[in-house]
């Protein structure tokens, strides 16, 4: 692989050599780094490439030129630029202040983006440092905050980082290579560039809000721009070495076309013509092939479209212009529409074109006018479903093509030339003839617009006639009417051969919606589905009892969490100190269900987040996972990763990524607070999930705080193996079950001076619950039920009797009542079971034995003795209620049975009868 990469490098790295570098002390420092898979145009689309490009090479960093200045206080010497060289290769990249660079980070595929402000060597002269202005990538912004953006971020978008929590001083040896960062106006659309090495800045991010960037911040010094040569050796290769710079990319595809495509943005303006040139040679072979290739290049981003275009490309040349994409899309739109509804010509745009053959100079406004027109006219003819998907699907390409147009205003000559060349290959009719027929055609179409009554045949005729002439119209006109021309090409083709016409007809209707395909699902992927909204608004609580019930619901968020002040304080100070110090740590919180563990921790985090917003503490990321809310312990990795970075990965891959993230030093990193609820469910046999969770915080660069919650106090001792328990540490906190006073306080504070309960009633509930479990949820549920009972009995206040009834409902055992309501034979059977148990002196009997007793009892009671089948049915009914426990029923009369209730209960229930 290295060899391949070197070859590649040799072949392409010629122009970027920087010769005759002066080597200053300190001598070249060497370090081994991973070369990242560079995002070539091609490489970004081919996953295969990624596997080839991860090479281990040595980079050598050297100062260029003498120090510019020397800071006496800090004993640092500043340098103008830094050169990066890969060992064994002649190519050198120069980094100087003001340039944008990529900095090695924890994610190989997404290195950090920054701008160099200053380069200096520290006092010893050994360490090379750089002061940078950070940019934040989309993937670095927490997904929750991304929503603030209010739109889907562009993958190449970066945000100027204005937070203060990141050091701006980095080791110069983590610099990878220069990169382009361009400022865009907030409203401006993103240019379509296939180049992965160009980033766009619109907004700044200060870890809370997005703000428009002041371009002066960015643009004032732009030495990286090729047009401003700062240092002589750098200027000629400025375009090429920029992205290709420091190292062999190791891309095993020495295809010159791809290489050219991979060059940086400045080159991209030249791209279409270059491609046109290459395509032009092909024209000799086949015009249609050429066109399809061109279209392919124009529509690379949407493979679906590309395919379609290839399929339907007519064998006529078209203008090799930058807005060919737009033309194609619109032509297709129309073609699709036409065949979908069996033809009605796209009149309004054509009229516009024919009447006012726009000059090249006035093309831009003209285009702006046309653009909305065409889809509208198409939409009129679209079926309902297509209507929905079309404009959305068309939009990006249209805006992008418009943008390109602006960029490439300088080179239409070449295109026109191409066009003419192409036309030579195509069929030519005299221009005069066409000019003659234009007016008649317009008249016809106007008629059509008015009437819209013509039959299909007519309409097709209408379309074909003008199309042939229009094609031959002047170059200028054709330039403007490319879109229309395409449509006409299709029509023409359809006329030429009926078979191809039908073919198109069948294909096109499907094509148009499909074109939107790759875009629409992308939108959906990010959309989390939700329960539909209710048709009518929820009713507000009407009276005091309803109000009380709403407040007593467990889900109601109380203003404060009473009775957990101490725990709150402890957890708060623990997390706060970790966040302030930028260190990591673990805390284990235990307690029986319903003692407020999760609520307290969440409240702590809410407070801390508030504090972070008030700039009292550095910002941090809070993530919450729950062992019960995942299907497999290993899913924890995937969930953490997704919540942290928004990327989706399999559990194994996520584990690897997280491992890297938490173990590698990153120049800027916020503390991560991870709440792991229901920790015991993350138990696996090897306990690797727990091990990792507790091991990460101990890493030097992790800045991870883990708060683990589980029920049992001695979980670490009981189920964790030593190395996990040791990492969990001894920072533990145990939530005691609530005492009756605390429960009472909780209810009172929730009611918040709402007089709905008698004091005695409240005390009864809290005493009862405290004695049973100390579960606050239970207490609230009972109170809620009591208000319902009270409401039904139409009493004003919830009193003792209501509470008693609620308690009874919730805690009374149903067995006695069930036995009392059982049928006579069932009761007799239970009695027989007890009799048989007494006889055997065992708590177990077979059905056969009990049946004998049962039959005897029946005779005593004066009932007809039951048969075996009937007896079995009785027995199984009791078994289904779990009054009896039974062996599997296939054992028939031999099945053994046990009582699931105490004998005393049974006798009590039967006696009272």
């Amino acid at each position: 692989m290295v060899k391949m990469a070197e070859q590649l490098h040799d072949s392409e790295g010629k122009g970027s050599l920087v010769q005759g570098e002066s080597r200053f002390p300190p001598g070249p420092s060497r370090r081994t780094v991973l070369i990242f898979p560079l995002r070539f145009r091609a490489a970004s689309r081919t996953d295969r490439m990624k596997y080839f490009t991860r090479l281990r090479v040595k980079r050598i960093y050297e100062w260029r030129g003498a120090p510019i200045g020397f800071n006496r206080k800090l004993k640092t010497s500043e340098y103008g630029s830094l050169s990066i060289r890969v060992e064994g290769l002649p190519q050198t990249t120069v980094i100087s202040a003001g340039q944008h660079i990529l900095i090695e980070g924890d994610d190989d595929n997404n290195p950090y983006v920054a701008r160099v402000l200053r380069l200096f060597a520290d006092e010893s002269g050994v360490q090379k440092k750089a002061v940078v202005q950070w940019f934040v990538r989309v993937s670095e912004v927490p997904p929750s905050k991304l929503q603030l953006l209010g739109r889907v971020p562009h993958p190449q978008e970066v945000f100027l980082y204005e937070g203060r929590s990141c050091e701006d001083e980095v080791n110069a040896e983590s610099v990878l290579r220069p990169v382009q960062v361009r400022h865009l106006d907030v409203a401006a659309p993103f240019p379509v560039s296939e180049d992965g090495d160009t980033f766009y800045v619109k907004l700044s991010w200060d870890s809370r809000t997005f703000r428009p960037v002041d371009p002066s911040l960015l643009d004032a010094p732009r030495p990286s721009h090729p047009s401003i040569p700062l240092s002589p050796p750098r200027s000629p290769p400025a375009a090429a070495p920029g992205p290709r710079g420091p190292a062999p990319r190791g891309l095993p595809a020495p295809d010159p076309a791809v290489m050219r495509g991979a060059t940086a943005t400045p080159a991209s303006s030249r791209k279409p013509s270059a491609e046109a040139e290459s395509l032009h040679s092909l024209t000799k072979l086949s015009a249609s092939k050429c066109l399809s290739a061109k279209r392919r290049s124009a529509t690379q981003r949407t493979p679906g479209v590309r395919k379609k275009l290839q399929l339907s490309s007519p064998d006529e040349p078209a203008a090799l212009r930058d807005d060919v994409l737009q033309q194609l899309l619109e032509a297709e739109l129309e073609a699709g529409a036409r065949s979908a509804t069996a033809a009605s010509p796209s009149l309004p745009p054509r009229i516009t074109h024919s009447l006012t053959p726009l000059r090249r100079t006035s093309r831009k406004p003209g285009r702006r006018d046309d653009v909305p027109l065409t889809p509208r006219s198409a939409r009129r003819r679209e079926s309902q479903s297509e209507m929905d998907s079309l404009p959305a699907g068309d939009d990006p390409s249209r805006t992008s093509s418009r943008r390109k147009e602006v960029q490439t205003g300088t080179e239409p000559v070449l295109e026109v030339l191409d066009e003419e060349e192409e036309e030579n290959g195509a069929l030519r009719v005299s221009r005069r003839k066409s000019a003659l027929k234009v007016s008649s055609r317009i008249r016809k179409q106007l008629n059509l617009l008015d009437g819209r009554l013509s039959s299909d045949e007519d309409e097709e005729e209408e379309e074909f006639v003008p199309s042939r002439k229009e094609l031959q119209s002047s170059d200028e006109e054709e330039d403007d009417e490319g879109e229309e021309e395409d449509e006409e090409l299709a029509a023409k083709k359809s006329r030429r051969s009926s078979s191809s016409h039908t073919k198109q007809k069948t294909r096109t209707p499907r094509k148009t919606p499909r074109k939107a395909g790759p875009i629409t699902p992308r939108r959906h992927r990010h959309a989390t589905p939700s329960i539909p909204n209710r048709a009518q608004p929820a009713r507000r609580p009407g009276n005091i009892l309803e109000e009380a019930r709403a407040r007593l619901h467990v889900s109601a968020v109380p203003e404060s969490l009473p009775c957990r002040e101490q725990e709150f304080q402890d957890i708060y100070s623990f997390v706060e100190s970790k966040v302030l110090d930028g260190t990591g740590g673990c805390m284990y919180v235990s307690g029986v269900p319903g003692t407020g563990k999760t609520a307290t921790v969440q409240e702590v985090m809410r407070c801390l987040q508030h504090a972070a917003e008030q700039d009292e503490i550095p910002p941090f990321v809070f993530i919450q996972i729950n062992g019960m809310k995942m299907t497999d312990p290993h899913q924890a990795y995937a969930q953490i990763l997704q919540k942290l970075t928004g990327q989706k990965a399999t559990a194994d891959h996520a584990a690897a990524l997280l491992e890297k993230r938490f173990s590698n030093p990153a120049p800027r990193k916020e503390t991560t607070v991870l709440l792991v609820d229901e920790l015991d469910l993350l138990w696996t046999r090897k306990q690797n999930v727990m091990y990792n969770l507790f091991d990460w915080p101990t890493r030097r660069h992790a800045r991870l705080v883990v708060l683990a919650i589980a029920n049992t106090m001695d979980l670490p001792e009981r189920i964790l193996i030593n190395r996990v328990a040791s990492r969990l540490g001894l920072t533990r906190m145990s939530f005691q079950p609530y005492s009756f006073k605390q429960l009472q306080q909780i209810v009172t504070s929730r009611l918040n001076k709402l007089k709905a309960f008698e004091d005695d009633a409240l005390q009864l509930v809290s005493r009862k619950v405290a004695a049973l479990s100390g579960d606050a949820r239970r207490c609230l549920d009972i109170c809620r039920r009591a208000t319902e009972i009270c409401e039904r009995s139409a009493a004003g206040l919830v009193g003792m009797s209501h509470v008693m009834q609620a308690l009874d409902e919730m805690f009374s055992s149903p067995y006695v009542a069930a036995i009392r309501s059982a049928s006579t034979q069932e009761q007799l059977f239970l009695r027989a079971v007890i009799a048989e148990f007494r006889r055997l002196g065992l708590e177990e009997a077979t059905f056969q034995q009990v049946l004998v007793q049962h039959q005897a009892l029946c005779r005593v009671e004066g009932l007809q003795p039951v048969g075996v089948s009937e007896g079995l049915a009785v027995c199984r009914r009791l078994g289904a209620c779990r009054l009896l426990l039974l062996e599997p029923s296939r054992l028939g009369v031999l099945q053994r049975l046990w009582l699931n209730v105490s004998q005393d209960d049974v006798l009590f229930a039967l006696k009272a009868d």
Partner: protein
Amino acid sequence: MSKRKAKDAHLPIGECISQVHQILRKRFCHQQLPVKPEGVEAQHKHLAELLKRTAVHGESNSVLIVGPRGAGKTMLLRSVLRELSQETEVQKNLLQVHLNGLLQTDDRIALKEITRQLQLENVVGDKVFGSFAENLTFLLDALKKGDRSSSRPVLFVLDEFDLFAQHKNQTLLYNLFDVSQSAQAPVAVVGLTCRLDVLELLEKRVKSRFSHRQMYLLSKLTFPQYLERIRDQLSLPDDFPDGKFAQEWNAAVTTLCEDKSAEEVLQRHFNSSTDFRSLHTLLMLCLSRVSVARPSITPTDLLDASRFCLADANANMLHGLSILELCLIIAMKHLNDVYEGEPFNLQMVHNEFKKFLQRKSNSMYNFEQPIIMKAFEHLQQLELIRPADGASAKTQREFQLMRLMLDHSQIMEALQKYPQCPTDVKQWATSAFA
């Protein structure tokens, strides 16, 4: 009304009978909910209020409806839902998800079913649910995004609730109850189960999240009420097309219920079980005998149907055995008597049978060993005998230990009815030394 009655009175009898069949079958096969739930008014009111609060106020709730089989749990829920669906405020808001523990045997299937019933698939377009994990996070996200006042409440009905408690980690239950106890999309979780110990099945965290609201459907029916219900079940409604026929039919039903023998039969059924499923089976059998020739249910019909219902399955099976097989069964019965239910093998049974033959000095039943073996195997196939626990397949078949799956009373009953049973065999059955 009377005018219409008079006009319709000329309906042919066959037409009337088929109408009767149609109406009553619908009732007995549970296709039609009763107009008003009987005996469970309190529970009905409670549940209706609860679900209404969820639908109207967006209050999350969870409740378990517990009652023995055939107690009317599903009927109660369905009639409540029917009642609620008549209120537009509820009807427009409430989303329903019905799950059954017997169908959704694990959480993965259950989640898919929930997503399908909530029609969330549509929201994600062409997204295919790959993994169980994705599905779970997807659903939880969906529920989490909602809030009390704005999203539509969802009613989860978990039939055979106890089976959901056997799913791994009770993930589904935990999450449903957790949603019901946190400020997310309002949900009402209604569990139906026949197990009285259902709360003990719940894991402590799941249990804590459950609101502990339980409704017990325990019937406190007395026999007169039971008779009344039967009469209601059999009576024709007032809007029956042929008024005269309906009157006659209803009168016949009243006399049937007052009949002594019929009452005895019904009493026996009532003693055995008070649920209406078994009663419906009985009445269905009676109904199927109603024809043009016999336009009403008579006590004898009821008696026959009852006999049919209470017939012993195994005893009936004995009627189809050969004399040899019957003899082997009798030999086994004697062995059981002697050894007090200890298992036996073919050799022992054969010896016992031989003893009987020697005493009788009758060569009529003198069969070869292979034939005996064959008969023995047939009995095993019919599951009248089964290998004793822990009997390994290695032992020779003659010596494999077996147990008899019949009770003595069943054998004696079968012998009484066995066609042309030789008297000496009958005698041998009653006494080992006959």
